[in-house]
């Protein structure tokens, strides 16, 4: 079971969090499993604005192949620059 938390922009589509019970081993598989639960969310997550953190470790590259484990907390985080 993996919990995925979302920022406000996703709340209308997915709520603030979704629990994935399907067995997955990578972030790429997790996104596909999420899309089966919340159709269309994979497309939203392909937006470069959003990064993914696993247990508070933010991923900056090699995302889809990163391993996830049962009990992980995954978070979608908008990443941008400021002034």
């Amino acid at each position, binding site marked *: 079971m993996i919990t995925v938390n979302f*920022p*406000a*922009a996703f709340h209308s589509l997915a709520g603030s969090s979704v629990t994935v019970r399907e067995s997955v081993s990578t972030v790429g598989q997790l996104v596909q499993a999420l899309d089966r639960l919340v159709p269309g969310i994979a497309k939203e997550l*392909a*937006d*470069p*604005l*959003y*990064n*993914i*953190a696993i247990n*508070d*470790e*933010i*991923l*900056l*590259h*090699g*995302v*889809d192949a990163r391993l996830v484990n049962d009990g992980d907390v995954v978070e979608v*985080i*908008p*990443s*941008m*620059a*400021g*002034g």
Partner: protein
Amino acid sequence: MAEMPRTPEFPSQGATLFVDLERRETLTAYTPVGVTRTLLAGRGANMYYLYRLLDETLSPLHPDIPLIFGSGLLTGLVPSAARGNCTSWSPESGVLLDSNAGDYFPSFMRMNGFDHLVLYGKAAAWTMLMIREGVVTFEDGTPYAGLDNIDMRDAVARDTGGKWARNLAMVNITRAGENGVLTSGIMGGPKAIYARGGPGAKMGSLGLKGIVTIAQTREFPTAQPYKPYNRVIAQKLLATSVVKNALSVTGTPFLYKPSRLLGAMGTKNNQETTWSDGLDAQHFDQYRPGMEGCFRCPVNCRPLNDLHSAAPDKYDKGDGPEYVTVGKFGPNLGVDSVESVIRLNNICNDLGLDTASTGSALGWAFELFQRGILTVEHTGGLELQWGDAAMIERLLFMMSVREGFGNVLADSMRAAEKGHYPPEAMQWRIAVKGLGQSDPHDARILKAFALGLAVATRGMDHLRNRATLEINARINDNPAFKAELYGGPVSAEPNSYAQKERAVRACEDIYAVGDSVGMCRFTTKLFNSPSLPGLEEFRSQLANVTGLQFTADELEQCGLNVMGVERLINHRLGVGRKDDTLPARWFDEPNPAGPYKGEKIDRQEFDAMLSRFYEISRLTSEGVPKDEWRKQLAGALGA
């Protein structure tokens, strides 16, 4: 002046107003079209004026060193193009001063028929420059002397009968500018500020308290109809994820969380690199009653704030904070309270203090106090303890009038040079080319970011060239798309040095073009998104508005030219390769937190990356334009 045209060179071009504040005289002329074709307007043409008028044998605050305002070629006409630049020789850093702001003044300058203002000479007494329907008068500024931003804006609206955001706009200094505080900016609105490099001190040295424009908004005569294409640009803006899901709803504080998770959040003057989750963007939500924006910008990215205090004072409400202020007055100073950060932000906006430079000056002093290099004997009995928001508030007011230890802080990154701190203090100064860091991001991990901070012409500032998309995993994981964005392959690994010079070069060029047409950095392609308006959109709308035809490559060359002239100016001020570097801490101390714990800047790798950057930027090994290009630029500048 003799070589400058007396009539517009192309549709929509406004005049350049030369203002002698000592003699109370003005002259008008127009930027030669050859200069426009080389550097565009705004920041670009500002460099033409500074290059021609700079006498480097003087000093930055000498009245013969001009203070120049410039609006972009599209400023006031195109959605999100509401920006202008302010340019001079920086009293804070000693190198180029060039600062960008939006709100309404840059657009309203154009509504009054002026693209550039070139100000020089010292007024005999505090002066207000009034521009009413294009007519310029000098008026007594002494009634406004001693006023900070909130009171001054109230007084000017009352005295002129104008209405902000309708027909009235202003740039003004505060007491900090009057007192020569080197971190003082020129306010361009409740929060908008020409911030970096001490422009407030420069304007104060000329005896100029404010410049007011009063005019109805008007249509410009343009080469061709431009409004249909404005709709294309507006749709592009509003359809972009970073605008609709971040900038328009929360603003820039979103960046705090990824920075702290990455272990890249500059904390306690960059001794540490992560900080409390209490400053994550969502904690500001309860204090944000709405969003505001600049002239004709559909994005509205400026958060308003209201602290709802039980005993409110003038700092209970305000505008902001932006991410930079959250970082510089949060982790940088050991503050973890949202309420404290908002209040300090509101105070800085009133006092006219650049939160980046002011936060840098405070962070440096606090670390020196922590290390025992400064003691209560230096500070007049004040204890500089991390996280003491009440002390920070007190110090801000002391800085603005140069009172007690505030006089030391007011000298910003020059405090050691001016004898306030011992020489060893320089070891812990977080600055490049004499300018404290803008973005509080600790760039020991992100190598494109680090290179950008090192080579930025105005000093340590991310807004000149940050290759922000190096933190976006979806772009890093799509090498072909990333190569298309930057004109060639760039390593996907954030901490790699490979090909990062290419990303910085591309960003520096397009941002310089953006500044020179007046487009906001937040809505310029590559800063926050690959989908925002870029060279193609600028090119199309420049043709409609001005009739000047550019290819995208020619526009990119204009961006490179702007950087080239800036480097020529800096070269005259003694800047060379030795100055394109980073704070010692980033080379010497490993990053102490996060997934990249242990990362630091390798001197040899950095030096090699810098050499590659010079090569693709047509620069010599000393970082100035190579001979052939230099001659071309000199010809275009008439020098």
